[in-house]
């Protein structure tokens, strides 16, 4: 799946999803639980703001010195016998991986969850080359079995599905004949997937953080699938977005602590694994061959711009879990594998405004995302920044809006003009007013009054009252 997965426009996608009652209940429930857990985990530390500041300073330092740390990382991976490939584009990355797999005569690929491999459309490329590709994260597996349903959340990709839907999919595709109890469904997946792990030639993982000083990569899961993917197949290929590097284990541990708390409210997830190179001399398990693919795919174009801070992201989805817009429209409405506030900032940067220009407007700029971000990305400010670019640099706003805003610029800068406008508006609206309310507004007001009452302009504006009472002090 590439980053963009829908041909419908934003409004239609949103309408579809708003009418999906199950999805909305699931998302609301998940948000409430995760919100509470995250707050508890933060409160327990007592000095969460200091943790956030530390996370921020680490990520900012890395981005400012990204070339150095990637150089150091690659040196140390190679020193331990790993093979590093720097991929400028999605295609370069996926073609390289396909070539490695073909050279190894790999037929069966097991994957642990990785957003960047979705971004580079890796599964399709490998499948076209005749490989069987199996997603092993339970959520990703469910989506894959269900004819490649797109993920709707960067941490819990199958959040939009209910247990009955999953049972039906398993029954149809996996000969499943038990109930829709999550335990039974998960056990079935365990049994199916354990066989796949043991039989696979190639393991492909993402990378939560790469550690420059030691040439290590790390994988954070609760299920343990990333451990299996990296312990059993003979060849391991790890794919990372180029920004996901940290200087050393000292910074790694801080960011992992921030990640697991922010994502799921856990102090650490069940498994955090740091892997350095292929298996060591004399080792029996672990890969014989280790490849690290470092992907740019549009990220370098974000560096040095007003959007640079978005690359601080550690993919915890805390912003998604507090977003009141995501709450109602779910992940699929975004039309991108990256959904929620981080998706609304990142997708237009990586995928362009042609496909994603609506996303920055799908926000009330309420700031909940910014507040939740463990590395202090000013997400709502970046959404606003997108709007500014769309309007002022790209000139993509509708003419009527541009004219209205121009008029605003003039009218709102002088009291006489404003007062004149207010009087005109007041007079124009009077015939529409009933019981101090306007229920059917004209022009732009219609969008408001389709949903809500609009208050009538008062008989006396505040300023007129004030002058009357206080003599215009």
């Amino acid at each position, binding site marked *: 799946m590439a980053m963009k997965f829908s041909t419908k426009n934003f409004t239609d996608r949103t309408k579809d999803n708003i009418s999906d009652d199950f999805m909305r209940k*699931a998302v609301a429930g*998940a948000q409430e639980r995760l919100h509470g857990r995250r707050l508890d985990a933060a409160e327990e*530390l007592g000095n969460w703001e200091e*943790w956030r*500041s530390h996370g921020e*300073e680490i990520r900012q330092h890395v981005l*400012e*010195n990204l*070339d*150095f740390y990637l*150089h150091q990382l*690659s040196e140390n*991976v*190679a020193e*331990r*016998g790993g*093979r*590093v*490939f*720097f*991929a*400028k584009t999605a295609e*370069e990355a996926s073609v390289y991986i396909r070539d490695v797999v073909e050279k190894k005569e790999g037929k069966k690929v097991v994957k642990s969850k990785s957003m960047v491999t979705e971004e580079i459309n890796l599964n399709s490329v490998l499948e076209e080359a005749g490989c069987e590709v199996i997603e092993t994260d339970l*959520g990703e597996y*469910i989506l894959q079995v269900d004819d490649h349903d797109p993920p709707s959340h960067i941490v819990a990709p*199958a959040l939009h599905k209910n247990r009955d839907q999953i049972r039906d999919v398993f029954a149809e595709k996996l000969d499943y004949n038990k109930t829709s109890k999550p335990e039974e*469904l*998960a*056990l079935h*997946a*365990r049994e199916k997937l*354990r066989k796949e792990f043991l039989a696979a030639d190639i393991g492909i993982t993402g990378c939560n953080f790469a550690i420059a000083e030691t040439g290590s990569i790390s994988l954070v899961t*609760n*299920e*343990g*699938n990333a451990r*299996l993917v*990296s*312990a059993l197949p003979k060849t391991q290929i790890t794919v990372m977005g*180029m920004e996901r590097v940290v200087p*050393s*284990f*000292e910074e790694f541990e801080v960011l992992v602590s921030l990640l697991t708390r922010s994502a*799921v409210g*856990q*102090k*650490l997830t*069940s*498994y*955090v*694994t*740091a*892997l350095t190179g292929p298996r*060591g*001399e*004399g080792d*029996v*398990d*672990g890969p014989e061959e280790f490849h690290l693919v*470092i992907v740019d795919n549009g990220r370098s174009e974000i560096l040095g711009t007003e959007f640079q801070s978005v690359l601080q992201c550690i993919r915890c989805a805390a912003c998604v879990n507090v977003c009141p817009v995501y709450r109602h429209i779910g992940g699929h409405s975004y039309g991108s594998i990256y959904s929620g506030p981080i998706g609304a900032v990142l997708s237009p940067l990586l995928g362009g405004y042609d496909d994603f220009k609506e996303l920055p407007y799908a926000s009330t700029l309420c700031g909940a995302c910014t507040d939740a971000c463990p590395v202090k990305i000013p997400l709502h400010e970046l959404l606003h920044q997108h709007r500014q670019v769309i309007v002022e640099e790209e000139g993509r706003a509708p003419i009527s809006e541009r004219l209205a805003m121009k008029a605003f610029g003039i009218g709102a800068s002088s009291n006489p003009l404003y007062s004149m406008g207010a009087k005109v508006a007041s007079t124009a609206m009077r015939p529409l007013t009933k019981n101090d309310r306007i229920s059917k507004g004209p022009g732009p007001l219609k969008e408001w009054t389709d949903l809500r009452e609009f208050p009538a302009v008062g008989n006396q504006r505040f300023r007129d009252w004030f002058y009357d009472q206080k003599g215009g002090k």
Partner: protein
Amino acid sequence: MTGTIRNRDTFLTEIATRLGREPKLNVQKPVWKHQPQRAVLKDASADELLEVLRNQCLQIHTDLIETKLADLPKTLAEAVKLYGGGPLSLWKDERFDKYGLTNLIENEWPAENIEVNSWDTTLGEKNIELAEQANIGITFSDMTLAESGTVVLLSSSDKGRSVSLLPTNYIAIIPKSTLVPRITQAADLIREKIDNGEQVPSCINFITGPSNSADIEMNLVIGVHGPVKAAYIIVNDC
């Protein structure tokens, strides 16, 4: 064995250019303004750390069993029975002998027909197969993080990754002396290794309870790909 690096120069030059400067060849990590991690459980005693671990185990669905050094064989034997007996998969680890478990492993369990497989590099891939068939995997903890309830396992040729991963159940033996406040101290340990010129192990696992998933309706399911149950046996060795 040295690996390879491809396409690096143009890639990194592009980054430097975007950042508006020449490529950087040397960067000193700054002294960070904030270091909140150092304050967590800063002056806690071993007993206080143990208390933190006890509480944390309740959160992570992990049984915690406390025992004296002299009782460890008995405790471990009971735990193995509790989780359904063998086959067992063990690291090859001198600590089993040091903690008085040799008799249990070499005599008592075999006498009870409990199959024990210690990691043996000469068997090659057979080790993985045996771990996969095992009912319980047993390892020591190299470092134990009280705050999160985590055992840190440093793998090596005798200490395969599979032992804590493939069996249906997992038991970690935790010498009380391995307790530290949190993952910060694990990073310090790695720093020490680097400073001593040692290589970082090819695989370091931070394991916090059994495998689990909340991918179906956010319902917690314990036991997905890794062990279905996890238990910690704390040995009072200090």
